């Protein structure tokens, strides 16, 4: 990994009274920090202050900022692509425009482009700049499904030699693009860590509510049976919704509450995924209890305290987990 870069800290009070505070964070050059949280949590404000479009302007870093709704000025797509860029940056932006399949639209009046086309064009401009710090606000929000993979690949490529801060409320974007996740709730960063850490081990109830998930595991697609794929996760076979081809690296996401727990393999089930494992830990989680099961990878399951008693489960004992394939989602990881 690259040399360390410090993302400056942000303190800003909104007219609504929300006090937004973020960072500073030390991160390696080449890493992507995803700022995740519910709507109204202050993510966009933090990004705007970093970009200097809000609050006291001017940090030490040269930033390039993609607003949530990029605006196209009068003139052609090319005019908009090159705004504020120097000669070398223009070439980089044009290459990215090709990758993002927007190059052919450059001669057209930019204000006639669709929302997704505007976002791809603006992304090519931002990633084409030589800025040290790239700030992207919901970069996939207006992107349709068939272009998601090219956009995530372009972000991964364009952010390679610098630091990117990406704001999103979309878990798939977190799973796809984050090296580090910072979860923001009510203006404050509550937890920072890897995707697996934050999603599987939320630090408190509010973070758990915000991430609303429980399981993010990495693996490789071994078979496809549309609309499902079979993924090898550290030896565990997981069926999930997905359209990736065999050999693709993916992350599989599913909620802890969708995992069914039994004491043994008795009883018929329609679930494609039936895994046995050892119960590692039992933790209270609000009105529920969370079971952490070693099934190869660690899997989290949420059940009621009543079920825990009825099943007579003990730490160290064996359990059988099942999960409908349609409750799990495989998302592509951009090629590194």
């Amino acid at each position, binding site marked *: 990994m690259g040399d360390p870069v410090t993302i400056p800290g942000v303190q800003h009070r909104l007219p609504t009274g929300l006090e937004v505070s973020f960072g500073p964070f030390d991160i390696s050059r080449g890493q992507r920090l995803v700022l995740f949280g519910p709507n109204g949590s202050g993510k966009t404000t933090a990004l705007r202050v970093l970009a200097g*479009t809000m609050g006291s302007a001017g940090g030490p870093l040269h930033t390039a900022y993609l*607003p949530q709704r990029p*605006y196209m*000025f009068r003139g052609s797509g090319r005019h908009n692509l090159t705004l504020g860029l120097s000669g070398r940056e223009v070439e980089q932006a044009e290459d990215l425009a090709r990758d993002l399949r927007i190059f052919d639209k450059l001669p057209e009046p930019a204000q006639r482009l669709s929302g997704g086309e505007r976002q791809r064009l603006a992304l090519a401009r931002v990633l084409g700049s030589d800025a040290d710090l790239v700030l992207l606000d919901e970069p996939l929000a207006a992107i349709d499904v068939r272009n998601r993979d090219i956009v995530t690949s372009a972000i991964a490529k364009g952010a390679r030699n610098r630091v990117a801060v990406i704001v999103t409320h979309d878990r798939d974007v977190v799973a796809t693009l984050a090296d580090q996740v910072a979860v923001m709730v009510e203006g404050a960063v509550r937890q920072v860590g890897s995707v697996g850490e934050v999603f599987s081990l939320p630090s408190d109830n509010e973070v758990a509510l915000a991430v609303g998930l429980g399981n993010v595991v990495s693996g490789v697609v071994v078979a496809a049976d549309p609309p499902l794929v079979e993924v090898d996760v550290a030896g565990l076979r997981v069926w999930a919704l997905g359209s990736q081809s065999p050999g693709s690296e993916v992350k599989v996401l599913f909620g802890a509450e969708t995992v069914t727990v039994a004491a043994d393999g008795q009883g018929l089930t329609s679930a494609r995924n039936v895994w046995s494992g050892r119960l590692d830990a039992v933790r209270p989680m609000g009105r529920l209890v969370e079971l952490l099961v070693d099934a190869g990878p660690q899997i989290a399951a949420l059940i009621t305290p009543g079920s825990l008693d009825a099943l007579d489960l003990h730490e160290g004992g064996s359990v059988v987990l099942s999960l409908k394939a349609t409750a799990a989602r495989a998302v592509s990881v951009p090629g590194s």
Partner: protein
Amino acid sequence: MSFLGEVLSEALSVLANFGPELRKVLWLTLLVSGLATFIGVLLGVPFGLWLGLDRFRGRGLLLTLVNAGMGIPPVLAGLLLLLLLWSEGPLGSLGGLFTPWAMVAAQALLAIPIAAGLTAAAVRGLSSDAREQLDALGLSRPRRWWLAGVEMWPGVAAAIAAAFGRVVSEVGAVLVVGGNIKGETRVLTTAIVQEARQARFGAAVALGVILLLMAVIVNGAITWLQLREAADG
């Protein structure tokens, strides 16, 4: 023939016999007001872009002053310049009084706040998305102003048209500093005053028609451009 009928037929005959004297008045009007508008736009539009786009201390006060300046009575602007240019005044040594240059200066004084105030209003109409994008691009200040001005050009064009309309139609300022000297500082508006005072109503109406035509042509051209733009967009 009725009185008004007589005035009208006389006006028509003046227009039909468009002579060198009238041509000179028309030419001087276009020159003085055109130059004054040019100066007013050159100073007023960037000033308006600054007021409309940048955040700084005292901006509200400046905006208030500019808006007040849009309503300054022309005769007062003329009086101010008269005092400055009077032989014992601070700029008396320039000797510009009762020349077209003094008239240009007086009208420019009227054009600047109009150009600035309406330009500021135009760019303040940029959507919040456009403003954020404008800030996000990290452009130099003049490029930022230029981009915003081009984006809101129908409003900026209206500001320029309004500035020209204001100065070409005013009589107070040019009368005070120009003196309405025949063949030297007489423009359409001061000529109308002159003709009306001497009860040559036909000639006054003829000059009024020319003045009206100029206003219609300038504003018609701007409106046409704006409509064409709206149809494109």
